[in-house]
C-alpha cells in the first residue's frame, strides 16, 4: 500500500467546491438564454412593454451571472492541471477533444452574449432577438461536451491500456460514448429546473410582499412553465440513468441503495445510514429497490460485500446525497402537478400565500438537488477517477501546499458570492425605485444628474 499523495484531500475538496459553485452558474448559461428568448419574443410579437422590460432586466442579470460563470469555469480548466496532473498527463489526449469543442461553444456563447447585451437599442429588434439563438444552442452543445467527459470517466472507452501505457486513442469514441447522451439529458433538464424554480422563486417572493402586477405575474409564470416541463421529465430520465448503473457501476449502485449484501428482490431503503457496517434508521419498502435500480421487481441488487474493501466508495455521503436528490425531485414534480391540476379546476394557486412560500423554497431546493446529484455521482465513483482505470490517488498532485490554495479558493468563492449578492440586490432595489437604465455610479450621466 503506497501512501496517499499529499494533495489528495485538499485537491478533492477544492475540486468539489469549484465544480459545485460553477455548476449553478453553468445552469444559468444553459437555460437562461432560452427563457429570455421566450420573454423577449413575447415582447416583440405582442408589442408588450412588460415582457420587453423583463427581458431587458434579465439580460442585465445574466451579464453578471455569465461573467462569474465564465471565470469560475476558467478556474476548472486550470485545476484540471493544477490538481490532477496524474489524470491530465496520461489521459489529456484521450479526454481533451470534447473539451476543445466545449471551448468552441463558449466562444460562440461569449460572442453572442456580448452582441446581445450591448445590442439593446442598437440593433434592429428582430435581429437583436435572434442573437439569443446561437447563445442558447452553444450552451447546450457545450454542456453535452463536458458531460461526455464525465460520462467517459464513469464508462471509459476510446483507448487501451497496454503495460500501463495508453494506446489506440480514439477521441471520437470519447465524445460519442454511450453514456453521454443520457447523462447530458439529465443535466440539461436539471439546468432548466434550477433556473426555472430560482427565477420563479424571486417573483413569488415579490408577490408575497404584495407586488401583484403584470410584471410579477409574467416573471413568475414563464420560468414556472419551463420548470414544470423539466420537473416532470427529470424523474423519468433519472430513472433510466439509474437502471444502467447495475451493469456499469454496481458498487456505486450498492452505495446508492445502502445494500450491504446482495438481495433478491432488494427492498428500497428510505433514509438510513451505515453505522459500523450495518444499515440503521431506515424505512424499508420490499421489492421496490429492485424495481428502481434494475427495472424489475425480482432482479438482484449486488451488495457492497461483493467488492474488495479497496474498491468501495464512501457509502453514507453517496447514499444520503442520492436520496436527497430523489426526494427533492419527487417533491418538486408533485408540486407542479398540484399547481396545474388546481389551475385546470379553476383555482389559481399563485394567489395562495402558502403555495407562493413553497415556490420560494423550491428555488434553493432545486439547486440542492443538483448538487446532491453530482455528489452522488462523483463520490459514488470513488476510489476511481477514471472507472477501474485510474485511481484518484494516482490522479492527484503531490503538492504539499495545496491546503493553502484550498483556503484561498474558499475566500475567493465567498467573496464572489457576496459580491454577486450585493450587486444583484442593489440592481433589484434600483429597479423597484424606477431606475431602468442602471448607469454606472462614476459615469458622467450620474454626475450631471
Amino acid at each position, binding site marked *: 500500500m503506497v501512501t496517499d499523495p499529499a494533495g489528495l484531500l485538499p485537491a478533492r475538496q477544492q475540486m468539489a467546491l469549484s465544480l459545485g459553485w460553477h455548476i449553478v452558474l453553468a445552469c444559468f448559461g444553459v437555460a437562461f438564454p432560452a427563457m429570455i428568448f421566450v420573454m423577449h419574443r413575447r415582447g416583440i410579437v405582442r408589442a408588450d412593454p412588460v415582457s420587453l422590460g423583463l427581458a431587458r432586466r434579465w439580460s442585465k442579470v445574466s451579464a453578471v451571472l455569465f461573467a462569474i460563470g465564465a471565470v469560475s469555469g476558467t478556474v476548472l480548466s486550470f485545476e484540471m492541471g493544477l490538481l490532477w496532473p496524474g489524470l491530465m498527463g496520461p489521459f*489529456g489526449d484521450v479526454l481533451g477533444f470534447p473539451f476543445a469543442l466545449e471551448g468552441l461553444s463558449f466562444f460562440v456563447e461569449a460572442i453572442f452574449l*456580448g452582441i446581445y447585451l450591448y445590442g439593446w437599442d442598437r440593433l434592429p429588434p428582430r435581429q437583436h432577438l435572434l442573437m439569443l439563438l446561437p447563445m442558447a444552442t452553444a450552451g447546450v452543445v457545450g454542456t453535452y461536451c463536458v458531460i461526455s467527459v464525465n460520462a467517459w470517466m464513469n464508462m471509459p472507452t476510446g483507448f487501451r491500456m497496454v503495460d500501463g501505457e495508453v494506446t489506440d486513442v480514439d477521441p471520437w469514441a470519447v465524445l460519442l460514448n454511450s453514456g453521454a447522451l443520457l447523462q447530458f439529458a439529465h443535466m440539461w433538464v436539471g439546468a432548466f429546473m434550477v433556473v426555472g424554480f430560482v427565477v420563479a422563486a424571486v417573483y413569488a417572493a415579490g408577490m408575497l410582499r404584495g407586488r401583484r402586477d403584470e410584471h410579477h405575474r409574467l416573471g413568475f409564470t414563464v420560468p414556472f412553465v419551463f420548470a414544470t416541463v423539466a420537473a416532470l421529465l427529470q424523474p423519468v430520465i433519472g430513472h433510466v440513468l439509474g437502471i444502467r448503473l447495475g451493469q456499469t457501476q454496481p458498487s456505486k449502485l450498492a452505495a446508492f441503495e445502502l445494500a450491504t449484501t446482495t438481495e433478491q428482490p432488494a427492498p428500497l431503503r428510505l433514509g438510513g445510514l451505515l453505522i459500523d457496517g450495518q444499515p440503521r434508521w431506515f424505512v424499508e419498502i420490499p421489492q421496490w429497490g429492485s424495481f428502481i435500480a434494475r427495472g424489475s421487481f425480482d432482479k438482484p441488487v449486488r451488495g457492497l460485500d461483493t467488492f474488495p474493501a479497496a474498491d468501495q466508495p464512501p457509502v453514507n455521503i453517496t447514499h444520503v446525497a442520492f436520496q436527497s436528490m430523489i426526494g427533492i425531485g419527487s417533491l418538486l414534480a408533485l408540486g407542479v402537478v398540484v399547481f396545474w391540476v388546481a389551475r385546470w379546476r379553476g383555482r389559481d394557486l399563485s394567489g395562495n400565500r402558502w403555495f407562493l412560500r413553497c415556490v420560494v423554497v423550491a428555488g434553493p431546493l432545486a439547486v440542492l438537488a443538483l448538487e446532491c446529484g453530482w455528489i452522488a455521482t462523483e463520490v459514488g465513483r470513488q476510489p476511481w477517477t477514471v472507472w477501474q482505470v485510474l485511481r484518484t490517488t494516482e490522479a492527484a498532485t503531490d503538492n504539499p501546499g495545496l491546503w493553502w490554495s484550498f483556503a484561498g479558493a474558499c475566500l*475567493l468563492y465567498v467573496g464572489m458570492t457576496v459580491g454577486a449578492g450585493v450587486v444583484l440586490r442593489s440592481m433589484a432595489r434600483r429597479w423597484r425605485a424606477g431606475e431602468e437604465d442602471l448607469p454606472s455610479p462614476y459615469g458622467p450621466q450620474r454626475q450631471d444628474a
Partner: protein
Amino acid sequence: MTLPVLAAAALFAGVLAYGLFGGADFGSGFFDLTAGGSTRGGELRTLVDHSIGPVWEANHVWLIYVLVTWWTAFPTTFAAATETLFVPFLLALVGIVLRGAAFAFRKYSGTLAQARLFGAVFAGSSLMAPFFFGTIAGAIASGRVPADGDGDLWSSWTSPTSLFGGVIAIGTCSFLAGVFLVADAERAGHRDLASGLRRRTLTVGVVTGAVVFVALVPIIHDATTLSEGLTGRAAPLILASGLTGAATLVLLARRRFPAARLTAVVAVATVLLGWGVAQYPWMLVDEVTIDQGAGADATLVAILVAVALAIVLVLPALGYLFRLTQSERWTHD
C-alpha cells in the same frame, strides 16, 4: 509539416490571439488604475467599460482555447508545466477571476463606494494576470520546466527571464490597451480624454521599450537556447517588432491613432511570434520537443478538425462582433 507541428502552430495561434486581444483587455486595467479620483477618472473608466464591455468575455475564451489545445495535443507537457509552475499559474488564475468578476460587478454596482472597491480590484488584478503569465512564459522559455514536472516550485519562475517577462507583459499589454483606448476616445469625440491618454500611452511605450532593452543582457545569459533563437532565426521578427513599435510612438505623437493601432498590433504580434520561432522545436525548452510531447495522432487530427471548425464558425462571428463595436451606432451611447 508534421502533425505535431501543425497542432503546435494551432496552439501558438491561440497564444498570439490571447496576447493581442486578452492583452489589450488586461492593459486597460492599467489606465483604469491610474485614472485618478472618482470624479476625474469617471470619464476614462466609462470609456474602459464601453470599450471592453462587449468583447472581454470573447477575448477571454482565447485562454480557454490555449489551455484546452495544450492539454489535448501535448498532455504530458501540460501536466509538467502545471506541476512545476503551480504558483504562478494559481496567481494568474486569481488575477483572472478577480478581474472578470469585479469588472461585471462594478458596471452594475449601486453606490460610488462599491464601484470604487470593485474598480480597484478590477484594475489591480488586471496587472496581476499578465505578470504571472509573463513569468510562466519566461520559465518555459528559459528551460526551467523539467519533463517530469518536478521542477522547483519557486526558483523555476523567479529567474531574470521570468521576472522581466512578467514586467514586459504588463508593459506591452498597457501599451496596446493605451493605443486602442486613444483611438476609441477620439472616435467617440472625447478630445481631452484622448490627448491625456495619448501622453500616458507614449510614456508607457517609452518605458516598456527601455525595460526590454535593459532586460536583454540578463536574458541572454539566463536563457541561452532562447537567445540563440532570438538572435538567429527569429532576428528579423524581433527587428520588425522594434521598428513597428517605434513607428507606433511616432504615429501616436502625430495623432494618427487608427494607424498607430495597426502598427502596435504588428509590434506585439511579431515579438510573440519571435518568441515562438526562437523556441522552436522545443515545447518545453531544453527538455521536450514538439514531437516528443505530442499526444496520440488521432487526437491531433481531431484537434485540427476542431480548429478548422473554429475558423469556420467562430472567426466570422468574432469579426461581426468587432465590426459592430467599431461602428458609428455602437460608439455613441
